[in-house]
C-alpha cells in the first residue's frame, strides 16, 4: 500500500462516529438516571468554584503573553519537524548527499534557535 487514496480514511470517519455515539448514549444515560432523583437548587450552587469565597469579576482577563510566545514558537518548529518526515523516509536512497542537506537544514534551524535564545524569547522567570 504505497499510494493512499481518500477512501482509506473512511474507517477513521466511522470510528469517530462510533465514539461520538458512545459519548451521546452515555450522556443520555446519565441524564435519565439523574432525572429521577430530586435536584436540590440553591442560590450559589451553580456559581464558579473559588475555594469557598465570593466570586469576584470575570475569569477571562488578559493573560500573560509568554504562553502566546510559546504557541508561536511551536508553530514555527512544528512545521520544521514535518519537513523531517519525508527526509526520514527517503533517507537511505538519498545517502550522503541527503545527510549533507539535512545537516544544513538542522544548522539553519539551530541558528534560528540561538537567535531566539539571545533575544530572550526563552526566558520565563
Amino acid at each position: 500500500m504505497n499510494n493512499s487514496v481518500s477512501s482509506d480514511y473512511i474507517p477513521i470517519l466511522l470510528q469517530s462516529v462510533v465514539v461520538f455515539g458512545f459519548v451521546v448514549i452515555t450522556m443520555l444515560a446519565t441524564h435519565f438516571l439523574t432525572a429521577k432523583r430530586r435536584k436540590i437548587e440553591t442560590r450559589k450552587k451553580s456559581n464558579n468554584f473559588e475555594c469557598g469565597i465570593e466570586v469576584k469579576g470575570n475569569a477571562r482577563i488578559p493573560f500573560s503573553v509568554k504562553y502566546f510566545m510559546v504557541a508561536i514558537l511551536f508553530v514555527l518548529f512544528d512545521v520544521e519537524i514535518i519537513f523531517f518526515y519525508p527526509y526520514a523516509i527517503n533517507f537511505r536512497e538519498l545517502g550522503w548527499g541527503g545527510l549533507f542537506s539535512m545537516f544544513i537544514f538542522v544548522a539553519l534551524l539551530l541558528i534560528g534557535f540561538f537567535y531566539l535564545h539571545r533575544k530572550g524569547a526563552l526566558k520565563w522567570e
Partner: protein
Amino acid sequence: MTFNIYDFTSFNQWIDKTLYDNLPSFWALIIEMTLIGVAFLLFYAVIGLFLVYAERKVCAFIQNRVGPNRVGPYGIFQTIADFIKLLMKEIIPINNADKFLFNLAPFIVIIASFMAIAAIPFGKGLHAIDFNIGIFYVMAVSSLGVVGILLAGWSSNNKYSLIGAMRSGAQIVSYELSVGLSMVTMVILAGSMQLSEIVEAQRNGWFIFTGHIPAFIAFVIFLIASTAETNRGPFDLAEAESELTAGFHTEYSGIKFAFFFLAEYMNMFIVASIAATIFWGGWMPLHIGGWVGFNHAMDFIPPFFWYMGKTLIVIFLMMWFKWTFPRLRIDQLLKLEWKYLLPINLFNIILMALVVLMGWHF
C-alpha cells in the same frame, strides 16, 4: 476459517470475505467498521478501568498504603463502582460558562484519544487500519486533545481552570516537538512510517538494542516528553491539585469529568503503546542470537501478550515517575523542553542518520 492466535491475518480475511459475500460492499464496510468500533470501545472501557485501578494500587504501594480493598477481592471492582457513581451524579450547570464550548470540550478530548487507537498494531494482522503514514497519523490525532483541554479551561469561566488550560496548552505543544523529533529518529532507522513495517523491521532485534546510543537517547526523550504530553506527574501542572484545585476540569461534574479522566488514561496507554511499538519491537518476541531453545520458548507466547506486556511496563514506568518526583514549576518545565530536549533531539537525529549510513547499527 482457521483461527490462529499467532497470526490474525486469516481471521480478518475470513470476516472480510463473509461480510462482502453476503452484503453489498457499502453496507459491508459500514458493518465491519462498526464492529471494529464496538470492539475498540469495549477494549477502551476495560483498559480505562484497569489503568485507574492499577494507578491507585501502584500509588498506594509506593506510599506504603494498601489502596482500594473494599469493593470485591483486593478492591478490583472499585473503578467499576466509581464509574457507576459518576454515571448517577448530577451534572451541575455553571453560571457564565460558555454553554456550547463547555459541553463540546469532553467530546473533543475523548474522540481524539479514541481515534489514535485505531492505528495501533496489537499483533500480526490485529490492527484496524494499517496506514502508510501510521505514526504520523497517531501523532496528529493525539495532539488534537489539547484543543479540548483549552476549550474546557476557557469556557468554564473559572480562574483556576483558565490558568490550568493555559499551562496545559503551553506544555503540550512544547513537548509535542520532542515527541515528534524522537519519532523521526526512529523512522530514520526503520525507513517507514507504516506501523506494521516498523514492527516487521524489528524481527531480528528491537530498535532499542539495534540502534544503540541514538535509539536509547530517543527513548529517554520520548518517555519524558510523552509523560509531559499526557499531563501526568511530575509534569501535571495543568491539574496541580494543591495549587489549582483541579485545573482545567474544576467545573466539570459527573460523567463529563469521567470523560476527561478516561481520556487521560487512554492517552497514557496510547503513548506507552507507541513507545512499545517503535522502541521495544511491538509484538515481536524477545530473541537472543544463538539461543535456539530460548527463542523457541519465546515464540510460543502469543504476540498480543508480548505487546500488552511491553505497554504495561512502559505505563508502570510512567506511574513510577508520577509518584516519586516532585512537580516542576512552569518555567522549569519550559526550560527543560526548549533549552535541553529540543537541541539534544536535533543533534540526535544527525547522529542516528550517521549511524545508519555508516552501518554502525546491528
